[in-house]
């Protein structure tokens, strides 16, 4: 089973982010990098109203755990955690939060970037955008 470092959450992410960030501590950590992806009001020139995220939850968590384990191994990280929202999200809400703890900044930046890039390639989560003009689309592929 997974390591539990990657979690799909069907509720506002903010309190989960606070708790996750608080736990990321180590006397050997000189660098803590965070990436937070948020819902923005525009995509490829179209005004966005809101999003829905859907996930294949057990596989997203196991595949996400693999991504985080790879990042820890490749970049020599002290820890790496990811929270990903599902359900209905409004403009400005966090959709994904990645926290990476490392000895030095090269590793924390590199590891954090690796995690978001891999999630966008292979973790089974899908985004449906609802536009101001009343249409909606499943986004196919990484943004």
């Amino acid at each position, binding site marked *: 089973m997974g390591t539990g470092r990657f979690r799909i959450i069907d509720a506002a992410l903010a309190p989960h982010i606070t708790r996750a960030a608080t736990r990321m501590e180590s006397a050997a950590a000189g660098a803590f990098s965070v990436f937070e992806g948020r819902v923005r009001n525009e995509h490829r020139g179209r005004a966005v109203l809101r999003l829905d995220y859907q996930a294949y939850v057990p*596989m997203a968590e196991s595949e996400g755990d693999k991504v985080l384990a790879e990042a820890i191994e490749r970049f020599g990280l002290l820890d790496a955690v990811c929270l990903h929202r599902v359900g209905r999200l409004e403009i400005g809400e966090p959709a994904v939060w990645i926290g990476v703890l490392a000895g030095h900044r090269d590793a924390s930046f590199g590891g954090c970037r690796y995690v978001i890039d891999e999630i966008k390639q292979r973790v089974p989560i899908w985004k449906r955008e609802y536009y101001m003009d009343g249409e909606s689309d499943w986004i196919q592929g990484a943004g």
Partner: protein
Amino acid sequence: MRIEVLYFASLRDASGVEQESVEMPEGDASQLFDQLNARHGFALPRERLRVAVNSEFADWHRPLTDGDEVAFIPPVSGG
């Protein structure tokens, strides 16, 4: 054999269900997909999908076994 099929994103919209139990003879995921595509008319061809068997990415041509859980994975857009 009986396969549990999960649908996501535009495939869920086409099938109208989140999952269904499907009876099929011996075969692989590509044959399962063709059988279901004929019924549901998915918006995405098989070439644009990946397949997962029991929550792991798998080869389209690995033989399925009774009770497997199969998901067709459209291009992902999380993050």
